[in-house]
């Protein structure tokens, strides 16, 4: 796991896939938000956040993810998570992220779900 969170973006039609590698803290969260907003601006209506290479998220990172989620919802878009460790999965569920964003085990399942919705 990288110490500085890196975010890689990939676009498949109207679905943007952001894959993180590292600690989702203030820096990591800001980078996710920056890239997520750029994708929304360029026409993406659904975001898939793949956290397969992330093992740690703090509350600042979560608050930024909530902001991203709100932004996506304001635009009537969709957000899905995948590749979560059990700890992060549980944290997201407690923090309310899972209320409005679906969680899938794999990226393929997440893309399929938001692309066909």
């Amino acid at each position, binding site marked *: *796991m990288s*110490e500085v969170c890196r975010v890689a973006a990939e676009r498949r039609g109207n679905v943007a896939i952001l894959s993180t590698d590292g*600690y989702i*803290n*203030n820096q990591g969260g800001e980078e996710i938000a920056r890239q997520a907003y750029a994708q929304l601006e360029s026409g993406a209506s659904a975001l898939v956040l793949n956290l397969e290479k992330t*093992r*740690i*998220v*703090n*509350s*600042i990172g979560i*608050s*930024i993810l*909530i902001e991203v989620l709100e*932004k996506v919802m*304001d*635009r009537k878009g969709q957000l899905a998570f995948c590749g979560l460790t059990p*700890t992060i999965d*549980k*944290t997201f569920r*407690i*923090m*309310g992220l899972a209320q409005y964003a679906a969680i899938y085990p794999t990226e393929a399942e997440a893309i399929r779900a938001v692309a066909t919705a």
Partner: protein
Amino acid sequence: MTDFAPAAASRLAGLWKALEEPLRGVDRPLPARLAQAAVSWTGARRGALYLRERDLWVRAAVAGDGAEELELPDFSSSRAASREDTLWIPLAAEGEVHGHLGLEGLSAEEGAELAPFLGLFLGSLLGAHRFSRQVKEADFEVRTRLVELESLYDLGLSLGGQLDVSSLADEVLFRSISLTDAGKGTLALFHEDGRLLLERSLGGQLLPPEGFASWQLPEGDAVINNAAASVPTAGVRLASCAKCLAVPISVAGRRLGVLAVADKESRDGRVLDFTPADARLLSLFANQAAAAIETARLHRAAIEQERIERELELAAAIQREILPRSLPEVTGVELAAASLPTRQVGGDYYDLFPLSRGRLGFLVADVSGKGVPAALLVSTVHAAVHLQIDEAKTVAELVARIDRHLRRYAATRKFLTMFFGLFEPDSGLLTYVSAGHNPALLLRGSGQTETLGATGVPVGMFPGSSWREVRVTLSPGDLLCVYTDGLTEAVNEQEEEFGLERLSAVVAGGREKPVRELCDRILEKVADFAREMPQYDDQTLLLLRRSEPPVDPHAG
């Protein structure tokens, strides 16, 4: 009043229309949308919106060119007031001022007419927005505390079953950093002798690895240092962070490691102070970690012990097969032998070989080392002797062949002392080689004791060694006692050795007894001498007495 109501309603409708679009917008924060709507609706040149942030009024949004220049005056009242060309309107609701809106370029009349509407309407919106934000923050805070509790619970569960110390360290470190919102952290664990066992860091090391062992954190207390860059933390300067929280990982006063996190993050990029609540949380993690690490350590030790015992039992079984189950019946010789390993597996070995023409070969050997490696060498020696005994023409040659065999095939570089004897009962001739072995005792029928010393170096010690054969003749009734040093070096509580002198005395005292009885008596005497003292060497003994010739009823 009747004139005002329709006008007010019309104004409110206009304001609502101006705000409708910005309120729905999602691209910009609410303050920016409100500032823009207010400027559009009033026709002001430009405007600025100030909101309260931690006891300070800060500019939250501007609308119009150069609106950044609109500086909020130092207000002492909550009424709208003009400063130069700008009207400053307090945005209030429920008796609380939520913001100040500055609009430039309005006439005094326009200002007087618009200010009440804007103040109330935008104030209400900001109040609702602020309240909604507070509710969200409170909800977030409650959920965060819930994550902490769940995390502690989960950590207890997962650590309970986690026996890999490395994974365990990662688990504790990641959760500690995450739940304290730290930017970085380190967990270091030590061996029992204080050496560093492992170190895990995220976001950079707080100390060079060798620095952790000497970090004297107070027992059972977390140390908060919110000036870590300039003030040492528990005596250690941490150059790599601004603020630090550290706690020792200990069990019953025994130091197992250190857990430290640093540089608590905030949403706006500032480094926050660590609080006593953070310290409590980190201490809880350290306690969980200490219990889990100790459990893992004890489990590893138990598994290792079990593995060793299994290996020793296996090796002991092999060795039991190697030692003779019974002694051969050889005419003209009384024999007795015993071997007591001090552990499950010893390094002693004895064997007897009935040979052609009524002869008897025998050996007593003591392999260097103990346990499984010694047992393996004993096994190799056993194979070598059985392979070579029919090939060698002399005792010395046999020992040399065993030496070469060991050099070629033994898995470990060890050596052994050995007494090998070839006894011819008819003549009483004993030919022997003592390869660095303890002096054997030869008790003559007359009561005199002779010692048969070494005739060469231990087997396997030096390449190209040779051994001298020595011949002695045993008269009927003479007794040979060959033993290993576990007997003579058995110690008692006063740390005295049993010694050759005591052994000689016991042998001499029992020279009339059957050799089996004497053998038991010797072992008993050694055991009585040592009492409860644990012994560290195997004890092996072989007794050989040349029998008195049978009385010929026809003689004389």
